[in-house]
């Protein structure tokens, strides 16, 4: 959240309330919702760390506006975030060890585990698929692309389960 705020402020100094609205508008369906309290806590922590500074914009016909602006240090932290390449593949597999354990234990049929897991993945894929085909997605490409990414991962997971199943079937022959 901190980095997203820095990115939003890099564009232009912004009022806390507007920041919250921009955040809601872009990420409300993707990230946990934030209340005003959480936003102001984050902003004051960022201010304390010297990443943002409060300043006042004098407005001719309206009351002055209190906005948050990016400091030089804030800009550097943001740039460092962008420069940092994500390492390692995006896999986290808790199923592999369970499957091996099933094979070792002899108390459960690994193919039953594969079947259950396939069901679960397919259900999730169905949920994502349905969501991705909702009419609103045509106007929301940044959300669509996120869903499609998740779907590609699930598709890979399902294909991998097929390989696991084949391995156990061949072992059984």
């Amino acid at each position: 959240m901190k980095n997203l705020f820095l990115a939003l402020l890099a564009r232009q100094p912004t009022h806390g309330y507007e920041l919250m609205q921009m955040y809601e508008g872009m990420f409300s369906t993707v990230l946990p919702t934030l209340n005003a309290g959480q936003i102001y806590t984050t902003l004051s922590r960022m201010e304390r760390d010297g990443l943002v500074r409060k300043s006042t914009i004098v407005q001719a016909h309206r009351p002055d506006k209190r906005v948050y602006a990016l400091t030089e240090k804030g800009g550097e932290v943001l740039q460092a975030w962008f420069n940092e390449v994500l390492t390692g593949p995006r896999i986290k597999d808790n199923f592999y060890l369970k499957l091996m354990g099933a094979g070792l234990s002899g108390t459960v049929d690994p193919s039953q585990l594969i079947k259950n897991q396939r069901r679960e993945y397919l259900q999730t894929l169905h949920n994502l698929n349905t969501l991705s085909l909702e009419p609103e997605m045509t106007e929301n490409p940044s959300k669509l692309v996120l869903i499609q990414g998740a779907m590609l991962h699930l598709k890979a997971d399902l294909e991998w389960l097929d390989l696991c199943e084949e391995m156990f079937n061949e072992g059984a022959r």
Partner: protein
Amino acid sequence: METYLLETKQLTKVYRNNGSKVHALQEVDLAVKPGEMVAVMGPSGCGKSTLLHILGGLDNPTSGEVHINGQRLDKMSEAQRAVLRRKQVGFMFQAFNLIGNLSVGDNIELPALVAGLSVRQARKRRDALLEDLGISDKSRNIPAQLSGGERQRVALARALVNQPTILLADEPTGNLDSKTAYEVLRLLRQTHMQGQTILIVTNDPNVASLAQRVVFMRDGRIINETILQERDDTKTLLVELLNLEGG
């Protein structure tokens, strides 16, 4: 039994090639209810196309029964099957099967004319489908002048032109890139939402997961199936699933 639109009992197909036998389908029991979208999923060579060709009356089973809309397909003469194919079944082939020297419009219109619609009616349905599937501007082109995704849309329009009892689709997004595949899935879902009964065979999890029920096939047999639930609170789905770090 008649609550099913399509039902097979102990459906078996054995291919004989100079002495060797291939058991392409073994005692397959499958049933599809009106309005249902079912996917049969399995690896290459497991018998998916064989199953669909038999259900569409394009091939004969070795043994077993096929009931479509209360009729015994496996007991029909070739002529009766031809009528059923025209009136009840819409078929999307794994390899489009469009007629190369006919325009897109004519490809869609032809099955309607063959089924006995008047030229006016056939044209009306053709134009409505072209419009629906967003290919009106391609009506005069021949299939070779289209992209894969466009050809697949023509194949869908052609399959739907006779308002079939059931739509059979064989690998409807085969060879398409993700973006074009997405468009085809959108159209299939839209067709299903309009009440069309659909049976899809595929090896692609994305396609299969569109269905309400997925039937798994291996080596010519159905090994199990899973029913996919609709979830109404899709709002929180992404937050739960992705666990994104806001940085």
